[in-house]
């Protein structure tokens, strides 16, 4: 596998490999001295056209634990402000001898564009509303840790599905691993022809999460209301907000995920977020798993392909 662009195009074998490798890497992340020389001498450049401290920091942490160089470029500070084209920016990074580019961009398809124009590995850190494969993978890892087997589980993804790259990566990853996926959201936030995807679609929260093993709560972007897709955050919260009460429709041991950052009180109540009253919220674990998954991705794409072992 040369790039990590989408989960839709990643094979089940590669997904399993990444999950297993990340599981091994988790142990390193848990150490007080988190440093292995695995990727020493390699340079990862993150190119973020969208603000994201958490994902970028997660990649930076992953790279540095493995002794790789981590250089961060965010658009406001770069020559892109002067009107440089995406193609030229990417070629410049390649000419700077980056070994891997981690890209986040508001337009779907840009990591594929990068992969078509460059010879070095590209990791998609989120492109428009298309995919966010490392998020999808860390969600899979988190589910696997709690439920052992992903196959046969019912996973409900709740929120602004139409605009969500997390939803798309999740649905491809989960269906490949044998889970049953439900997309739940207001009709104005469900994508066109969603019923042609390998999922079930619901515009009612209660029926959507009925008996679900996992509920993945998506962040509601406040601009949806400004754009006329929702009447108010208040009504969204009443109809689709995940609270201890609304969660009762799901299984008693339902696992709650959220990609972060959370809008407490809108899509998710504080009690659910904090795991009050026995609610299994894995939100913090997701973040830690994220570092491990990104270590695995960097290792798979940048590591010496001949040596299969993780130096400890």
């Amino acid at each position: 596998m040369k790039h990590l662009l989408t989960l839709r195009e990643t094979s089940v074998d590669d997904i399993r490999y990444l999950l297993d490798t990340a599981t091994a890497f988790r142990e390193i992340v848990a150490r007080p001295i988190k440093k292995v020389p695995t990727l020493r001498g390699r340079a990862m450049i993150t190119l973020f056209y969208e603000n994201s401290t958490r994902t970028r920091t997660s990649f930076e942490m992953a790279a540095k634990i493995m002794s790789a160089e981590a250089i961060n470029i965010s658009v406001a500070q770069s020559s892109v402000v002067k009107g440089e084209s995406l193609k030229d920016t990417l070629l410049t990074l390649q000419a700077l001898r980056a070994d891997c580019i981690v890209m986040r961009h508001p337009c779907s398809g840009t990591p594929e564009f990068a992969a078509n124009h460059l010879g070095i590995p590209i990791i998609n850190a989120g492109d428009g509303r298309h995919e966010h494969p490392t998020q999808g993978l860390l969600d899979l890892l988190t589910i696997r840790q709690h439920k052992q087997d992903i196959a046969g589980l019912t996973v409900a993804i709740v929120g602004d599905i139409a605009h969500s790259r997390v939803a798309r990566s999740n649905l491809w990853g989960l269906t490949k691993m044998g889970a049953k996926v439900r997309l739940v959201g207001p009709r104005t936030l469900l994508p066109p022809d969603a019923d042609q995807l390998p999922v079930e679609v619901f515009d009612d929260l209660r029926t959507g999460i009925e008996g679900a093993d996992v509920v993945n709560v998506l962040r509601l972007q406040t601009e949806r209301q400004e754009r006329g897709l929702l009447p108010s955050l208040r009504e969204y919260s009443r109809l689709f907000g995940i609270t201890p009460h609304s969660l009762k429709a799901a299984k008693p041991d339902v696992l709650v995920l959220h990609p972060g950052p959370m809008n407490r009180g809108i899509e998710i109540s504080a009690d659910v977020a904090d795991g009050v009253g026995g609610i299994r919220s894995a939100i913090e674990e997701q973040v830690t798993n994220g570092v491990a998954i990104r270590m695995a991705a960097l290792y798979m794409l940048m590591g010496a392909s001949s040596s299969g072992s993780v130096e400890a």
Partner: protein
Amino acid sequence: MGRTHFSLAFASVKVHGLTVKVHGLNSYSESNPEMMQEKRLRKILTGGRILDPSQNIDRLGDLLIEDDHIVGIFAVGEAARNTNTQSTVESETIDVRGKLVTPGLIDIHVHLREPGQEYKEDLETGTKAAAAGGFTRVCCMPNTVPAIDTAAVVRQILERTAQVGSAHVHPIGAATQAMQGDQLTEMAELKASGAIAISDDAYPLQNAETVRRVMEYCAMLGLVFMTHNEDKHLTEKGAMNEGYTATVMGIAGMPRIAEDIAVARNIMLAQLTGCRLHLLHISTAGTVELLRRAKAGGINVTGEACPHHWALTDEACMGYDTDAKMNPPLRTVADCEAVKRGLADGTIDCIVTDHAPHAGYEKEVEFDAAPFGIIGLETSFALTYTHLVKPGILDLSDAIAKMTCIPARTIGLPEGTGTLKSGALADVAIFDLEKEWTVDRNAVQSKSKNTPFHSMTVQGKADFTIVAGQVIRL
């Protein structure tokens, strides 16, 4: 008699006082001073299959051309024996055995980008691209810089074409000033200076009241109003057809109903005002059905379709190929089938290209950011022949009609265009129907390379064209 034919032929291409000439015609008189002394230049295209739908002719024969007009169609070998002239004759015989000879193709929907965007295409390269595709006449859309919203721009285009063009060019005037959708243009003056029709292409009018007034004005002047049918509120930020493919790709979609709604509105307003309406680049099954019903109801409306709207679906966008991005976008199989049926049953009148050149660096960007449009002049005949004629959806005569006499009549070109009848201006296209070839974006005449058909193998290619009696071989 020959003299009368000569001046008649010129009269038939006078566009309100301004004779439309083509490359070389001016120098033609200079380099052939004998012309002034009654010397005639003849060309005989011998042995080809002459297909002229305007006269219901489809037979082997000779086509006799004298100076810039057609004398007539004769049996093979007989044209050379035609001696109905008293002055000296210089004769050239062109062997077109095995070839198809038709009236020069006419594309009533192209973007030639001059004035203002000559880095994408200009009148010289655009008309060369036309000639390479078998076109001898094109009508260019007004979204240039400045827009074709004054007589000055119309005249500039006509004069430039006379200097460097390889095909006749008819400018289409804008409906509103600077295409802002507000003030009407001086359409009477546009018409008088040579504009052939009016359009809002690329800047579809959103206000029904404005459309009504444009239509009333066009009806008054006898001008066809060619509409780009799109409700921009429904397509906001969309970059491709709304549907499953866009959902998977994470790209905002342009729903088909955005076109259907605008079509319905425009048809109703055309009925109210009596304006001759022509629907541009039909892409949805809904539009085809609305057009069918409108015609059945006696409303004076016509329509056109581009090859990409029957040859490709939105799946061509997978991989974020910006050469598959155009407006209206590629749709679904059902829409392609509806377009084909519409062409076959006569609902859709014309085949056009919406030739829309863009520079490589403009297209080599994020899918959302890329401009809409693809080139099409050089592949249109081949795609028509390969996807419509060969599979039996349209017979060859109908296909040629939809690219010659029907567009001529639809847009209001003068009598004698799109035909090989005696006395008509000698605009001819010669095709090799058997030729199989592979589309190569790097081998086009156009300045721009934005085609989704690159590497596709097709059949049917233009050999050369004749424009006002001049052979154009590229």
